[in-house]
């Protein structure tokens, strides 16, 4: 059957079904968390360090934006509509989606060997030189090496590892450190971070780091072929012509 052979030869599986589903659900949760998080922030756009903070204490910084509450002095003569109720409800619902998908994805990473095979830098990549040469390659915009069709380069691996094992755990931790039920029962959750208000400020900083990652991630997708990459993350398949791989180079 020539057609079947042709299909097999011209497409490669780039992302497994589980990765595709969790990727888009996490994306959905992230957008919901970001939008509702901004809504919640607007009700008190002042940030503090330590355990307590309110309009009687000094903020470490303030966003000079109008607020959705008239208890905050903003300098604006008006108050925005209060969106905190549904924002908080949705924020935690989306957080649950993120946590559950994250756990499924983490299980997949560990049990399929994806983590050691595609995310931990390989032996040759564990040097500063590996990083600098890949950065240089990005700057000079040289075509990626063929192995990058099947796996990630050292910068991608490092970025994904930081997001999965540093930023996401931190965003959850700083979030839980603002929960009165958690902090009255387990005070260390918040005191290790410097207190409730420090946790709130750190929650914002980690959010900014995650948004920066998203920004770079989308730019990279756009640079390397937006439609093909999005299609690959939806259908799982990448076309040979798109990857510019010759038949003999296929495994």
């Amino acid at each position, binding site marked *: 059957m020539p057609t079947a052979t042709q299909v097999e030869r011209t497409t490669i599986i780039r992302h497994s079904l589980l990765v595709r589903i969790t990727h888009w659900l996490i994306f959905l949760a992230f957008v919901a968390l970001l939008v509702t998080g901004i809504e919640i922030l607007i*009700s008190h756009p002042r940030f503090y360090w330590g*355990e307590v903070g*309110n309009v009687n204490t000094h903020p470490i910084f303030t966003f000079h934006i109008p607020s959705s509450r008239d208890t905050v002095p903003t300098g604006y003569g008006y108050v925005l509509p209060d969106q905190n109720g*549904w924002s908080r409800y949705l924020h*935690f619902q989306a*957080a649950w989606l993120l946590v559950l998908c994250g756990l499924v994805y983490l299980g997949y990473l560990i049990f399929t060997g994806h983590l050691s095979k595609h995310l931990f830098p390989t032996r040759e990549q564990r040097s500063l030189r590996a990083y600098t040469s890949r950065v240089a390659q990005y700057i000079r915009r040289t075509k990626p090496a063929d192995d990058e069709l099947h796996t990630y380069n050292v910068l991608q691996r490092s970025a994904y590892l930081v997001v999965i094992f540093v930023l996401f755990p931190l965003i959850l931790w700083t979030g839980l450190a603002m929960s*009165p039920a958690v902090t*009255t*029962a387990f005070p260390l959750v918040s005191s290790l971070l410097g207190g409730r208000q420090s946790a709130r400020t750190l929650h914002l900083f980690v959010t900014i780091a995650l948004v920066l990652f998203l920004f770079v991630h989308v730019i990279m997708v756009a640079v390397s072929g937006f439609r093909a990459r999005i299609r690959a993350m939806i259908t799982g398949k990448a076309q040979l012509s798109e990857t510019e791989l010759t038949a003999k180079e296929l495994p």
Partner: protein
Amino acid sequence: MNPITRRKLLTTGLAATAGAAGLITAARLARKYGLIPPDHSVLYGTGETLTYACQRVLTADRPLHDFPRSMISKQPFMNEIGKLPDAFKASQAVNFSDWRLTVDGLVDHPLSLSVADLRGLAMRSQITEVACEEGWSYVAEWIGTPLSLVLREAGLKPEVRYLAYFSIQPSWWESIDISEALNPGTLVTWAMNDGDLPVGFGGPLRLRVPRQLGYKSIKFLTRITATDSMKHFGKGLGSPSPEDGYAWYAGI
């Protein structure tokens, strides 16, 4: 495209059946142990239910954390309060000597207590934080009578699952589950930072629920009702908060 093999079909089918059975069992257990909040049916009730159930299981029996005295906020933030009704002003004129806290519903001995009665009953002081859903917070010393001791005086019937509580401000009320009500941290508060509880902080009586956000700590407390279900209070969602779009459970 990979063809769907018999093995794949079997594993997927088995996994789906196990998942469905697991969910049904989880729902049944959650209902049995009271892990379903009254506002579970609202638009974002799934997240609310998961949070409530998990936090109940993990934190129910934990002791309350007190802050050291040195951390008491020098200038606690007095949140704005609505226009107070005439009944409040009349009581304020006699220094709240005629203020009454009614305890009724599913109790053996309905009570009507003055602030002095409460002071005579028992005293507990705790240094806890008020955290508002807006993001601000302060720490204060709260002095009052543990709600659990008031409820012991009234004698709760075994079927009680929730305590609804009301302010003198019309249509301002909340409810908590029995586990929150019996937690030693839940305090019928009548003093703050070594003085009487100021009106701006909810005086003469405020129910402090330190394990939840500030909006559960109702000011100007007048009545507590023990019930087995929140169905017949307001719209049946547990309090006016979910009716305004806010979660009933405010532990997060």
